């Protein structure tokens, strides 16, 4: 009996501190773990919400349009857009930004749509639509010929294609040098061998011809010599003595 009593007491005092310590250690991490799990859940919910709705812009052609929806054909795929009541539609007409209504949106219009993209529904909730005009064309290359009589230059791109560029009265020509930076320049500044960037509009019914809006002349950066055809023309115009 005594032995059993002693054994019982021994076991009790052996196990009691252990039980108390175990209980207290479980209490602290469980509270922290709960807070951590709660924070993780809130973060995951927020990330999912942000992924679901993200600000996005798309560019394409109006394929179909109705009172509340439209389909835009982009370079990669067709995107369905939801036309909200407070949507802003604008277009530059005769140089002035003009606000329009949804009924002015037509099939075939080249547009940029701004809104929130819902990845779950694969739908863009449009907040603003801008109807684009024809964008100017840009070429970069080397001047291979200048014609003072026609006020044209011929530009050859690195791909080997040649464009004839018409210099108009409205054409803005800028010249850049390392010492002076960007300065205003005239047609006479353009020389064969110069590296140029041209922004212009295609000339109707004439292939590979642009009417220049802006020209940036960087001078002879490529180090290529002046083409022989230009040298021949120069000697032909030099007056004989």
């Amino acid at each position, binding site marked *: 009996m005594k032995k059993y009593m002693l054994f019982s007491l021994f076991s009790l005092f*052996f196990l*009691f*501190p*252990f039980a108390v310590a175990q209980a207290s250690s479980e209490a602290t991490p469980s509270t922290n773990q709960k807070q951590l799990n709660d924070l993780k859940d809130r973060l995951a919910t927020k990330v999912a919400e942000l992924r679901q709705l993200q600000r996005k812009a798309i560019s394409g052609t109006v394929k179909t349009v109705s009172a509340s929806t439209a389909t835009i054909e982009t370079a990669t795929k067709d995107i369905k857009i939801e036309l909200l009541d407070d949507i802003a539609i604008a277009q530059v007409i005769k140089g002035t930004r003009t606000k329009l209504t949804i009924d002015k949106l037509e099939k075939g219009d080249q547009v*940029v749509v*701004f809104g929130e993209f819902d990845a779950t529904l694969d739908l863009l909730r449009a907040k603003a639509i801008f109807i684009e005009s024809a*964008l100017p064309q840009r070429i*970069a290359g080397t001047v291979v010929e200048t014609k003072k009589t026609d006020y044209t230059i011929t530009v050859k791109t690195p791909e080997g294609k040649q464009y004839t560029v018409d210099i108009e009265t409205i054409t803005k020509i800028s010249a850049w040098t390392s010492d002076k930076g960007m300065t205003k320049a005239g047609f006479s500044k353009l020389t064969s061998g110069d590296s140029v*960037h041209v922004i212009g509009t295609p000339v109707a019914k004439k292939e590979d011809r642009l009417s220049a809006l802006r020209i940036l002349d960087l001078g002879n*950066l490529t180090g290529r010599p002046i083409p022989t055809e230009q040298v021949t023309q120069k000697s032909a115009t030099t007056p004989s003595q």
Partner: protein
Amino acid sequence: MNRDALLATLIGLGVGLVITGLLLVGPTLVKSISLPKFSFSFPSAKQNPSTSPTPAPTEFFVSIDSPLAEDIAANDELLVSGKTLEGTIVTVQGPKDEDVVTAKTDGAYAGKVMLIEGKNDITVTAYKDGKQMSQTVTVYFTPEEI
């Protein structure tokens, strides 16, 4: 309670406390003990990266770091930045204007262009030693609240 019982109780209490303490503190003590690391490989120049600097790129390249493709710009003035070789002449062309800059010693360049409403194709062209290379990025802008 007689002396034997009391003694048994005290011994049990002590042993229980010791074992409980080991169970609680033991893992922490084991983690805090860091064993010395022995390396039997011969020392070489490769193991000391601080003495061998990263060589600068020599192959001609140009990259656009900002803006990201298909970004919606916050306002109509856009800062375009990126990397190329040192001393490279870089043109940054936007739909309304262009900027010409020279890359710094670390190859970084930055230029500003004005945007138009809608789609803007920004082209960066680098010129160096008779070579030319271009990169284009599309950015969108609207004055409307989105």
